[in-house]
Each structure stands twice: as C-alpha cells, then as structure tokens.
C-alpha cells in the first residue's frame, strides 16, 4: 500500500510534499537507538519530532513518518526530511488509536 493511500484513509495531516512510497510494514517507536533496527520501507509511527529521528529514519530508508498525538515537527526537521525525501504526517489521536486505524486500513 502506498503512503498517499494511508494518508487519505487515516485522515493524516501532511507536513511536507515528498515522493509517494510503498509501505512494507509498520514500526512504532520513540527511541532513535531502537529505530536504527527498523526494516527498510517501514512506516514509522512516533511521538518524537527531534532531528535525530529523521537522521535515523533516512539511514534505514523508511517509507514515511507519522507523528501521533498532534505532535508537530519544527521547520528545520521538516526541511531535513524533505531533503531526504521522507514524508512527514500528523495524527491528532494517540498512538494506539492510530495503530488500530492502520490495521483496519489493511497494513500488517
């Protein structure tokens, strides 16, 4: 499933405009030290809007990042993600609600 399809079905807010990528799986984590184990193509769900997160997300080639609980990244984080071609999205609800929604949409 493509990121754009998930963004539409889950009513996500887009923080930037990046190439549409195929999602291989979903990974939920708030620790950079943990994210570096993520598989490529993962849709990363996190509360963390720090620049370190984008640096790690780029290294492991995630398909996109979703910030839950209405968290919004700062301009420099958005710029770095845009350079890396990583789409950043926001979700107003909590991580559990988002996880349920992603599963209902069909992500596994």
């Amino acid at each position, binding site marked *: 499933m493509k990121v754009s399809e998930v963004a539409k079905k889950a009513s996500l807010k887009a923080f930037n405009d990046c190439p549409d990528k195929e999602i291989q799986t979903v990974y939920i984590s708030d620790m950079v030290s943990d994210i570096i184990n993520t598989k490529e193509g993962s849709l990363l769900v996190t509360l963390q809007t720090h620049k370190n997160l984008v640096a790690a997300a780029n290294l492991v*080639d995630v398909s996109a990042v979703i910030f839950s609980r209405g968290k919004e990244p700062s301009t420099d984080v958005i710029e770095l993600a845009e350079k890396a071609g990583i789409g950043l999205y926001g979700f107003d609800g909590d991580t559990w609600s988002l996880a349920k929604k992603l599963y209902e949409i069909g992500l596994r």
Partner: protein
Amino acid sequence: MNGKECDHEWEMTNVRNGYLVMEGCFGCGGRLSFFSEEPVPPQDDYREGDHFWSFRGSFQATKFDIRCTKCGHLVNLQDVNALMLCTNCDPDCPVSKAAKEGAEVACWAYVAICPDTTHDKGSCVSDEGIRRLNEYYNQRRSSGSLIKVLPCRMRKSVDQCHGIYLADIGLTELY
C-alpha cells in the same frame, strides 16, 4: 562458501542496547567514548597514565554487528560506537567533500564514530567495517539516494562538527 566469493547479503546481528558514554581529559583535551551495557552507565573519574578522564555525558544507544545471510561471514563492529549524520556544516571538512565526490545521485554521509574520539592513539574504525557498513545500508535502499559511511578520523574538527548523532540525544524534550 568462501567469504571472498560470496555476493554478500548483510543483516544486522548481535544487537545490544546500552549507553554511549563520553569522557574527556582536562590535561590534554583528549576525548574518548565507550559503550556500556550496564543498567546505569559509569560516571567515575579515573587516572590512566598522564590522563585524568572525566565523565562528559551519556546517551542511550545501540551497537550491532552484521552478518552475511548467505555465507555466514560476520563483521564485528566492536570499533563502531555510534553513527552520525553529516550536516555539511563545513564545506572544507573532508567528510563533506567525500559525500559529494563522484555522486550522481543524492548522497548522505554518515560518520562511524570510533572509541578514540580525538584519535590520540591513532586508531579508528576498520576499513572492512566501513566497507561492509556501506554495503549493508545501500543493498536494499529504494529511495534513490545513497548512504556513504565514512570513518570519524576524516572529520576536520570534533569540536566544531554539527553532525547529528543517532543516539537518544535530546529525546527528553518530548513534551
């Protein structure tokens, strides 16, 4: 299968969670780091020859090795304490220059940080470690950009580097 004949496919293995601990010597200005797997990382000051090492900080981090899924060849990355994204803060820095060399597509430089931060002992991450990390991070990449992993000895200045460490630095600023 002989490792040299294998078209390696790398996977991460021996993943260890712990702390990246940084120390500095007030006498010589030298810096070093080590990876601690203890529940609480050590913060003791100690003497080592002419050095007096003091705790400078610690961050949760992950260490790992890589192994070929085809031939089983294991690359021990004991000498890699962390990775750091180069932000091209200084165009004259050899890391920044190397990132741009011969790159026809977007290239992201990541610096492999060795324990001997100021390289007082002359050691750094092994050539094989660097080569294999490059293979590992680029083998399944689909985003069209390249990852270039470089040894930290190439950094122009440890003090002026604005690189972004892949460790849990600043993550307590969550709310």
